[in-house]
């Protein structure tokens, strides 16, 4: 009887700790999400929102090329950005963790994430100035005579990818670095004792052990990149629209909230698929 009371008390205490997070999630995620799902089943007809449930918005998405292309553009850009960011961030994180003396590592990390301190919009516009016809790159190439006409570096997908990669390399460097410094040097010593060379040690020991850091950073990159519309807007020159830009058009120009809700659900589905793909490495295990 006493034990049961103690258990009840413990359970109540546990619920007390969990309750704020639970209420927060319920109020600011579950309820709005359910409302958004319901809204995605309404439709905008003329200048009115008709609250009769149907799948018209989803059908429109599947049949209108411009909308579907928004998703494919988003996926292509996001996957390219994620892959490039991982490829650039890993060596950077490794150099900071392995080659930079301990007392300088903090400074190196601060330098690596310094661009985070500037405004996201300002950073995108800065890239525009770097990549434009009269920008730093073109002026330098023209100056040394490598080109005779300015290159078209801005207002295209390449510019969007460059802007994104610059931002996300910093994020990935942090997640991979935090993973690398937790690795015991004994793993490498053991691999060397067993005859593995540097590449084999990296391929069979270091890389698998740092996969959680890579996948965590890659997933965060995917989520932030696929949901962003500012960088494609500024650097892409609106020459192709990504899904978040199309969502903004539905809200800003048409006040078509049902269609915007449907497209947002589709965006969430893309993120869910990415999560499932990364889940194996993202699970939190008890020590």
């Amino acid at each position, binding site marked *: 009887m006493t034990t049961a009371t103690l258990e009840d008390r413990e359970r109540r205490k546990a619920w007390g700790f969990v309750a704020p997070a639970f209420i927060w999630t319920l109020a600011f995620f579950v309820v709005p999400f359910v409302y958004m799902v319901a809204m995605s089943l309404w439709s905008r007809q003329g*200048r009115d929102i008709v609250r009769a449930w149907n799948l018209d918005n989803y059908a429109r998405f599947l049949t209108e090329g*411009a909308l579907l292309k928004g998703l494919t553009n988003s996926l292509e850009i996001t996957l390219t950005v994620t892959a490039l960011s991982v490829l650039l961030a890993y060596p950077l994180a490794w150099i900071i963790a392995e080659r930079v003396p301990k007392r300088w590592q903090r400074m190196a990390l601060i330098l690596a994430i310094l661009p985070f301190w500037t405004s996201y919009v300002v950073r995108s516009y800065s890239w525009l*100035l770097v990549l434009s016809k009269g920008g730093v790159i073109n002026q330098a190439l023209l100056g040394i005579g490598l080109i005779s006409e300015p290159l078209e570096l*801005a207002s295209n997908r390449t510019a969007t990818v460059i802007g994104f990669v610059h931002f996300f390399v910093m994020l990935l460097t942090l997640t991979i670095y935090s993973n690398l410094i937790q690795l015991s040097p004994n793993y490498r010593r053991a691999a060397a004792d067993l005859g593995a060379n540097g590449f084999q040690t990296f391929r069979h020991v270091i890389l698998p052990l740092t996969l959680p850091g890579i996948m965590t950073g890659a997933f965060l990159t995917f989520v932030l990149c696929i949901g962003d519309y500012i960088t494609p807007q500024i650097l892409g*020159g609106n*020459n192709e629209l990504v899904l978040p830009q199309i969502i903004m*058009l539905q809200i800003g*120009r048409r006040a078509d909230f049902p269609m915007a809700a449907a497209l947002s659900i589709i965006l969430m589905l893309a993120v869910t698929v990415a999560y499932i793909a990364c889940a194996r490495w993202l699970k939190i295990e008890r020590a």
Partner: protein
Amino acid sequence: MTRSSAGSTAHRLFSTTAAVAFVALLAGQAAAAEELNALVWCDHTDPALIEPFEKANDVKVNLKEYEGTGAGISILEQSRPGDWDVMVIDAVDVHRVIDMGLLGEMPADALPSADLFPELRMEANNTKDGKTYAVTEKFGYNTISYDKTKVDPKDMEDLSVIWSDKYKGRIALYDYYLPMIGLVQLGLGKKTAELSEADMPAIEEKLSAMKAVSKQVSDVISSQTALATGEVDILVGGGEWITASLAKDKPNLDWIVPKQGAVRWAQSIAVMKDSAKPDLALKFVQYIMSPEGQARLATSSCYWGMPTNQKAGEHLAPEQKQALRWDDQAGYLQNTQLYPVPSAELDQKMQDAWTNMMQQ
């Protein structure tokens, strides 16, 4: 200085600063007896325009900026009655908001209608059933802006240049479907007021041709930046609102109304029906429409445009009037047409056509 005494000094400094800031905040709140909430375009956010009204009336004007009627209506639909006191809106869309029952009537004799350019009184747009709901405050043209040192100005006299190959990759398109589709309609030799669904196939074909020769589709700031930095040499949809404020620093930028004409934009200001301060809201409208207010609005730091009140000319410097081409307005007004006013269905088709163009 020891570490602890430095910390103590820092703490005292912080406390004092916080206390001063708090008192300043309270004083600031006490300073403005009333607040006015205005849903506006970016030209109204210039302190040089707003501060004189705030000081004269002991009021704080809270400004919310939006772009495009759809965005404005979207904000209104999410607001509660009484949230907004004043609204700035495309003159051709005033009836959309009147029909939503959101605009309040203004006494016609409280507005300087007689001083406005006759073409900008726009009674058909600003009034309904003999009641005045809005007044046109500023206007200009969506036409062709260009760098006269890099293109042949003669080429700019014909609207067909916007889909010709001659300047391929050197053109920016202003990202607002209504005036742009209006311009295409003019380029096809038709009137914007007569634009119907039957015109859409030909318009879509021309939009596609425009996209093929353009470098980018951009908003106001990006368009202006692209033209000013030489990223593009032509901006379709631009006009004095893009180049006038740059006249001093970039004399190489110019604009023209082609022989086929151009689209005329006009913005109106109105008092909201559910405003809790209708008198103050009307006072604000009267200030904006006064010659002084009109001159400040015309030369707003966000974008320049012609004031509708002709008496504003007395408060503009000769070089400002020159940049606005004050003396050429009679000819421009004759050769320009208002934005198309589509039905909800046609509006959707126009937006779809614009989105398809961007995705091609």
